[in-house]
């Protein structure tokens, strides 16, 4: 059976050039990059080359990037690293960190933990398209505020936040600005030499690199506490033996992403515009998120009268992989926190699904998927007590 992958926001296939670049670092150049002998030095050279590839993708100096185990660790390190420099009792009332209600769990759950430790966190709401309100951000900042963490682009609905404006506001108030750019990289040009961003998280496996590796960008003068105590790798900011093959893969993935950026963006834009246009042919279908300020690969829809997990199951049976706007727990279905934050009712959130396309997606695939989606929705609506056609 034909298999169609439309969940690129979850993960991407590793590019063959990336795999090729990684191969020597498993059993040929296997030394520990921290060792001073030749085996070690060769590995270190590879790591530093990768650091250059990553940093030049963002137009900044190599020493501004440190490698992590992925986007989640980069987010944790940014938030806790800044917060832990002061005990909550030594800080004023706060808020100490300002974030949004639609952040990835890597940020949101870290904030919840910091709250449990006594830090004060402000969660900015978003409008019905997923954008934060800049005036509200200004009003929320106090002299106790250490950090603002707002994602570059949302992983579920693809809404792109006004990071430049957020950063300018942060800096005007002497506050640091962190952004989770895990979904933005490769779909939006990001020039960190020009943007008012102090900390930025990236992940390799979202940009056709291997899983288990990511990086945190940090401006040179910034100090933060490490998450791990150990051998003091990465200038003491991130202990743990460097994952040479993974880092090499991330470096190559960044280089390719930079090289292909224009082509990737125009190709994805063309295909998602077409996909969105065709999905609107379905009765009572609504695009979630922002109509224009959205990631070029994100197609997030809700279809009245159907339950997203059922549609997911039907498509899965036909070999089509997508994501839903809810998760099944033991007693009931949990609607996504992002969709609820937009002001969608639980029913609307539960009737939502996400397609995310990528470099390997073809128009043929979209044309293959469309009638199956339509049939599946018709099937579920024919069973649904909540569905009444307007036609």
């Amino acid at each position, binding site marked *: 059976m034909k298999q169609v992958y439309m969940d690129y926001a979850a993960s991407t296939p590793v590019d063959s050039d990336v795999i090729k670049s990684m191969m020597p670092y498993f059993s040929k150049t296997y030394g520990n990059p921290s060792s001073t002998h030749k085996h070690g030095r060769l590995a270190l050279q590879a790591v530093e080359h990768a650091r250059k590839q990553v940093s030049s993708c963002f137009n900044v100096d190599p020493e501004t990037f440190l490698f992590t185990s992925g986007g989640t660790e980069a987010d944790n390190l940014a938030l806790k690293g800044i917060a832990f420099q002061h005990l909550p009792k030594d800080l004023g009332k706060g808020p100490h960190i300002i974030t949004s209600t639609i952040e990835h769990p890597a940020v949101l759950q870290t904030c919840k933990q910091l709250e449990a430790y006594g830090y004060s966190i402000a969660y900015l709401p978003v409008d019905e398209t997923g954008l934060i309100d800049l005036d509200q951000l200004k009003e929320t900042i106090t002299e106790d505020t250490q950090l603002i963490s707002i994602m570059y682009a949302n992983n579920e609905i693809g809404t792109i936040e006004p990071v430049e404006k957020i950063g300018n506001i942060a800096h005007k108030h002497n506050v640091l600005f962190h952004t989770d750019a895990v979904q933005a990289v490769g779909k939006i040009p990001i020039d960190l030499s020009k943007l008012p961003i102090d900390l930025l998280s990236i992940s390799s496996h979202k940009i056709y690199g291997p899983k288990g590796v990511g990086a945190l960008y940090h401006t040179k003068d910034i100090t933060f506490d490490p998450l791990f105590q150990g051998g003091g790798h990465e200038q003491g900011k991130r202990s743990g033996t460097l994952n040479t093959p993974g880092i090499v893969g991330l470096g190559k993935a960044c280089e390719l992403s930079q090289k292909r950026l224009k082509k990737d963006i125009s190709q994805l834009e063309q295909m998602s515009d077409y996909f969105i246009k065709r999905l609107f042919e379905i009765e009572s279908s609504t695009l979630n998120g922002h109509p224009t300020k959205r990631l070029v690969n994100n197609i997030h829809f809700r279809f009245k009268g159907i339950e997203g997990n*059922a549609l997911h*199951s039907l498509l899965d*049976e036909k070999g089509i992989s997508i994501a839903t706007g*809810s998760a099944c727990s033991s007693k009931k279905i949990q609607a996504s926190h992002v969709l609820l934050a937009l002001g969608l009712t639980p*029913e609307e959130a539960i009737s939502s699904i996400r397609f995310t396309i990528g470099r390997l997606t073809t128009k043929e695939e979209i044309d293959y998927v469309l009638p199956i989606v339509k049939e599946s929705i018709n099937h579920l609506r024919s069973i*649904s*007590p909540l569905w009444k056609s307007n036609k």
Partner: protein
Amino acid sequence: MNQEYTEIVKDHFFHPRNVGRLSTPSGSGTVGNPSCGDVMTIDIIVENNIITEAKFQTYGCAAAIASGSMTTELIKGKTITECKKLSMNDIIKQLGGLPEEKTHCSNLATEALQKAIKNYQKNSLL
């Protein structure tokens, strides 16, 4: 699809039996809430204390749809007394099992059935 679903569940999900509403039911029962992700309606026709016809509608996941389909299949030709005894576990057993987090879906079907039976009994007193 979800590998944890049995072939019987898949069959009833892809080809649900007895879908729809009855125009003159002896009893009807609707349970669930769209905001919790599932709603189930079951209509029955009862003649001489035996369920002769049953239809269902479900807004919900694969397990909920399969449970509605299986429940309506099981009750046809059975007496009201027999149907009153039908439990969530009976449906799960007939479906060849359900993943743990989906067991409440079959409960929804039996609850809708019990509500339809009560509705029938109330109607028949009028």
